[in-house]
């Protein structure tokens, strides 16, 4: 038995290279499969991103354009109720509704001279944005010479008309929404007469929130986010680095530092709403700061980003080879000189990456802001850290919950702005890493 088996094995024993060759195809297949899994994972992510982007962009691009109609406005002093010549202050309180009304009726009479009923009049007026009066006020204040003259002016239309005109441009019947048959026919006539145009929607970037979609903009939210980010960067960056340097370079290893480390890691995983509650109790409750201001928002976000920054900074400092420190000590550098001249500059790319990821996270946060009153309707653009303001993600949330149809495209457009903000921040992180990495090699 033994002999036989021995004999057969001597005859058939494969050499190592045979064994390797036999398995080679299988191993290559496994290798190939492994790579395909990886590519598949990336493709999956990419497709999701693509769907998200096409959805957001296809919904949101319309918000960057607004519809205007051309009207011949006669700045009649009687109708404006501007009676004293030369008194520019009167322009603020003048009755611009009257001149718009006159222009609309004159325009309409040209098409259908039939007398309009009261309902028709109201319907006709509601085609123009309620914000049109402010643009007329601006025209008149900027050039008081137009008083008593007839001027061609482009006026922004109401959001219902805006929706209708935009949906017509996409072909098909057009989304009529709340427009009556009569109103549609007026708008159609304007389109035929070439009185309607689409221009870049500067309002979206220059004005604050509004409940009229055609007047709504992201300026106040954007400024709120910027102020908060300034506070967060100004506080959490130095504090985070100081804490990381102390813990890595100075602190003795004992129970206390262990305890601190566990706590920091824990805090990094705490849901952000908890930081909002903390901010409410400390800054608003104890320090008596006002609600809804970017300063408090920035402080809360500082608390939220600190653990992330400390953890990533510690990792970056730890990664600096100890030979660098030893060499510096060998040349007689003090501990502070070692840290400031050698360790920190080398760790900077890693520290910055971690910090910017933390700030990007802070920029997209809404939950803690709810607690400190920043989920609010803010029209006036905040001028400093103590003015009430909202933030970009909050603005997106509020618009997504609004009944007006035209806010759908504005929501998506605001998301696009937020994404652009985030992409540029991450781009900055990559650039800084490259620059700092190069200069210290």
């Amino acid at each position, binding site marked *: 038995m033994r002999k036989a088996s021995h004999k057969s094995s001597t005859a058939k024993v494969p050499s190592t290279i045979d064994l390797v060759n036999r398995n080679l195809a299988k191993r290559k297949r496994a290798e190939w499969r492994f790579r395909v899994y990886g590519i598949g994972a990336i493709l999956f992510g990419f497709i999701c991103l693509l769907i998200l982007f096409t959805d957001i962009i296809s919904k949101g691009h319309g918000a960057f354009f607004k519809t205007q109609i051309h009207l011949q406005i006669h700045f009649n002093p009687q109708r404006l109720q501007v009676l004293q010549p030369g008194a520019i202050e009167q322009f603020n309180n003048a009755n611009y509704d009257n001149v718009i009304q006159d222009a609309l009726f004159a325009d309409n009479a040209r098409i259908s001279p039939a007398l309009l009923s009261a309902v028709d009049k*109201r319907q006709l007026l*509601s085609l123009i944005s*309620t914000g049109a009066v*402010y643009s007329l006020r601006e025209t008149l204040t900027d050039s008081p010479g137009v008083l008593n003259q007839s001027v061609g002016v482009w006026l922004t239309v109401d959001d219902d008309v805006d929706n209708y005109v935009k949906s017509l441009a996409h072909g098909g019947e057009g*989304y*009529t*929404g*709340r427009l009556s048959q009569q109103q549609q026919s007026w708008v159609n006539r304007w389109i035929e007469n070439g009185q309607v145009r689409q221009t870049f929607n500067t309002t979206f970037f220059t004005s604050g*929130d*509004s*409940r*009229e979609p055609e007047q709504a903009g992201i300026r106040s939210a954007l400024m709120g986010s910027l102020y908060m980010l300034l*506070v967060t960067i*100004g*506080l959490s*960056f*130095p*504090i985070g*680095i*100081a804490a990381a340097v102390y813990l890595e370079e100075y602190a003795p290893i004992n129970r206390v530092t262990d305890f601190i480390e566990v706590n920091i890691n824990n805090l990094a995983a705490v849901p952000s709403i908890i930081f909002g509650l903390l901010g409410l109790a400390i800054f*608003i409750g104890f*320090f*008596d*700061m*006002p*609600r*809804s201001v970017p*300063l408090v928002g920035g402080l809360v976000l500082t608390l939220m980003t600190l653990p992330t920054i400390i953890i990533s900074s510690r990792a970056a400092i730890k990664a600096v080879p100890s030979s660098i420190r030893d060499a510096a000590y060998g040349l007689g550098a003090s501990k502070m000189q070692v840290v*400031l001249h050698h360790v*920190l500059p080398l760790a900077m790319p890693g520290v910055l990456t971690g910090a910017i990821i933390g700030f990007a996270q802070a920029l997209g946060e809404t939950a803690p802001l709810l607690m400190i*009153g920043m*989920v*609010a*309707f*803010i*029209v*006036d653009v905040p001028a400093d*850290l*103590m003015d*009430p303001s909202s933030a970009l993600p909050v603005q997106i949330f*509020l618009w*997504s*919950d*609004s*009944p*007006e*149809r035209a806010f*759908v495209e504005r929501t998506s457009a605001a998301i696009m702005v937020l994404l652009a903000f985030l992409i540029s921040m991450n781009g900055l992180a990559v650039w800084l890493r490259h620059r700092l990495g190069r200069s210290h090699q």
Partner: protein
Amino acid sequence: MKPSALSIICACVWTLISAPANAMRDYIDVVGSSTVYAFSTVVAERFGKTSQFHTPKIESTGSGGGLKLFCQGVGMKFPDIANSSRRIKPSEIDLCQQNGVNEVIEILIGFDGIVLAQSKLAEHIQLTRRELYLALAKSVPNPDGSATTIDNPFITWQDINPRLPNIEIEVFGPPPTSGTRDAFSELVLDYGCHTFDWLAQMSEPQSQAQTSSREARTRKNQQRRLCRMLREDGAYIDAGENDNLVVQKLNANPNALGLLGFSFLDQNRDRIKSAKIDGFSPSFSSIANGDYPISRPLYFYVKKAHIGMIPGIEAFIREFVSDNASGESGYLPRKGMIPLSKSERQAIEYRINALHTIMHQ
């Protein structure tokens, strides 16, 4: 690195310290209901643009959260006005008084309709509140007629009434924290429940002699639980606070119904339509005259002590109740608010004028 970091820290600490603890606030601070938010913001915006005052700041915190903040006290750091989609509760009045908020002015501004919407493609459905109760309550009266309840057995609408279509009961609606849901429980489920005699009589004392107040209270609680609990087996689907999401879901699923605010129906008429309830479709007139049964009042509460302290409060109230805003052809009804009748508005205006004379004595 070091000096710049230090200077930033110094700058920030300085800002912190110099942050005026109780600075003069020159804008009106409004908190409260997300439903009233939709209307309050419109008024605030116009007010900011047409008056010499700053635009009021309106926070959307929900009715309960808003009134809690409102009742924290009198002073610059407390809100001036609370929006609410329900009337203030006695417990909230107590809280206000504990904190020195003694005089609060209540102003009714209009109504909000709650509609049961369905996809435009769906077959039109007509329901009564009793049928809705049977479709959505967790436990329903035993069909054999005895005074007991069973777990809700109904799967399709037809199971409830042969007149109704043979489709599965599926209703999208807001979560329990929402005021819309509260109003629905009270106005539809509770009402439907009370159409069953034994359930309606449950809270009434059995025999007047012995029933202790404690027993009456437990009976009342039991009735409340039986009447207002929503079923949890998937027929009622919690769709979150966002009404636009409900519109999208209805669009995707023509068999489902959805609970929405009236303004969302008004804005999405190309996608959804409303179900008739108790024979009435929701419209401005049917809600305003009370024919359509599911609507709730919208209020705001003003801290009297703040009038004169914060500039513009009185002017803001006047703008809110003016003809131009809440009148029948004002700008708030255009946003979907159901206006009050002329006499109701006049009564409110009269009260505000009375306030005016008090303020100037």
